[in-house]
């Protein structure tokens, strides 16, 4: 792939904003359209933009495979832990055990915010790993 300087430069400037937008989608998922999976997909699209513009090898130097893999595994484990914590704390499996706030504020609706964050990281890391594997030039 012949590199174009414009594409590389613009994508470098855009990626932080895309990541920020993804994080916004994740954290406002319980208030407006968005949520864990949607925000995670946007996060991974930022990674995909980097892979497409600078190549997978360069992107992997920045976001190492093992680190992304560790994020995914931790997020998966945390999700199961939060689900099981519901059972341990008296409410049923996957039951809410955090206080419900006021409707309309970010820290509201119990633990859905945390589940969204966890799922967002999980999905972002997962799709990033898919992109790493499929886009590799051997």
């Amino acid at each position, binding site marked *: 792939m012949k590199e174009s300087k414009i594409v590389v430069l613009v994508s470098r400037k855009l990626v932080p904003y895309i990541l920020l937008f993804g994080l916004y989608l994740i954290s406002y998922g319980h208030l407006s359209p968005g949520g864990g999976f949607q925000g995670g997909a946007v996060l991974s699209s930022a990674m995909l933009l980097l892979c497409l513009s600078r190549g997978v090898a360069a992107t992997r130097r920045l976001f190492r495979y*093992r680190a992304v*893999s*560790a994020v*995914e*595994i931790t997020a*998966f*484990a945390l999700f*199961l832990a939060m*689900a*099981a914590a*519901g*059972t341990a704390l008296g*409410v*049923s*499996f*996957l*039951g*809410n055990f955090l206080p419900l706030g006021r409707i309309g504020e970010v820290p509201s609706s119990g633990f859905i915010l945390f589940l969204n964050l966890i799922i967002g990281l999980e999905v972002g890391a997962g799709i990033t790993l898919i992109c790493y594997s499929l886009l590799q030039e051997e």
Partner: protein
Amino acid sequence: MTEALPLLILLPFAASVLCLLARLLRRLLLAQVVAVLSLGGILLILGLLLPVLHSQGGLTYSMGGWPEPLGIALNFDTLAWSSSVMGTVVGLCALLFAIGERKYDSDFYFFFLLLVAGMEGVILTGDLFNMFVFIEIVSISSYILIAYSLSRDSLWACLRYLLLSSLSIFLFLLGLFLVYRIMGTFSLRLITASLSSAGGTVPPAASDSASGTAKALGLAVAALTVGIGLKAAFVPLHTWLPDAHAAAPHPVSALLSGVMIKVSFLAVWRILAALGTTGLQALFRWIGPLTALLAVGLALCQTDSKRLLAFHSVSQMGLITAAFGAAAGGGSAGLSASLAHILSHSLFKSLLFLSVGAAIHLTGERDLQRSSAISTPPWLMPFFLVGALSISGLPPFNGFVSKTLVVSLFKSSPLLATALRLAAVGTAASMIKLSGMFRRGRMEPLAADEAVVGSGRSAPSPFFLIPLSLLALLCLAGGIAPRFLIGSLVVSATGEPSGGFPSAYTAEHLIESGIYAALAAGVYLLIRTHRASRVLKRIRDLRLSLDGSLVLIVAAVVLFVVLGGILRGGFPSALFSR
């Protein structure tokens, strides 16, 4: 104790996370230990739940505390209990076998545990869409496990299965859409309740005429059945199975043939029980024997040992489907026979796949003609013998009990009974053909395993012995004490009055199985002749193209709708009375 129900699904998921961790840390032992412990934990919980089940009859658990129809419920009855035990026992045996083979890394155990977790989910869930999610978890894990060896055959088998399965899941979703439009909910319990309270015809949210809603419901059930029915592998939805189960690694073949196709059939069972259209169930009365006969015929032509066993899986699913179909119209004897054969088949089919797998592992040869010249260790032969006698329906094994039950349901229709009997003869004949793999040959095996050396003088690996012996013992126990082992499970699951489990050891049945054995020997000698082998090769080379298989699926939905409606009665008039 109801709190323990989600643990049945949570345990394998948690163990799979640890397998991923093991992959990151490069410690295979962690993955293996965690996998075995989690399956053992599931069995422990199931054992603890048994007295609770006896006293209460059934457990329900609402996930997240949300009651239906807002939330998803887990339904745990005796049917779920027996299937979970069957699945976990076979899974544990396959897992031990995989550890003994020593060629899988942590990824394999990750997908294996996902498969087990997904199957537990399909069995337990009481919500149709949740069932779809777990079915997809099972599917994706099975795609990857089938293609695990990355050989050319397994990749193509996996892709074929993937395309067929995705098309059928699409049809399943169409059926879900219709169910939601008509019923307004996805919950199986609520659907059953609203259909039965209205007398089985008009559901509450209907605005169409009664016949229109019934038509739509029939279409929905046909789509749902074809959707999951692909995984249960009855005709015409069986075309993916021989390639996939033959190309998969041995423990995966055992798990898929032994558990996954049954669990998918149990999902069809639950859906038909909840939505209550007996037309489709009656259709199974015809599809079952057709599947059994057709698959046995194709099995006899095969020269690859695992392909032969895979065709037998299709054929036995035909028996199970036939028994289920015979129960249409309210007879619970058919359901008992079907469930009995499900339990027996999972045991002896996984035993067969594991013993053939051990033979292939030790000798390096899977083709029947080539491997008959190589000798397998003598300790392997008894295990294969138990499996072969069970699948042929010979006493004193569990296959005899369940097969005679199934065939006895068809006393009223001699055509179907003959088809089933011919299938039984063909099964026994192909088992004789398969046993050629285990005979003493002239050459010693070329592939020497670290655990077993050459002439079999050193001890066989315990990871092979334990699962094989466990499965063989269970097959034997099911045959010797059928009332205790099979009868009690089946009766409480299908609601038949206790004591209603008929005895299989009557003189008539014993003589019949003797006749089958004799006929089978005759058939086997017949197919060994040169002219017959040319005919068999011609049949073997007939292959359905991928596009043909896909068209068959779409055609199957049309077929099920039309035939199911006709068998229920009144469908053509409703169709043309607009």
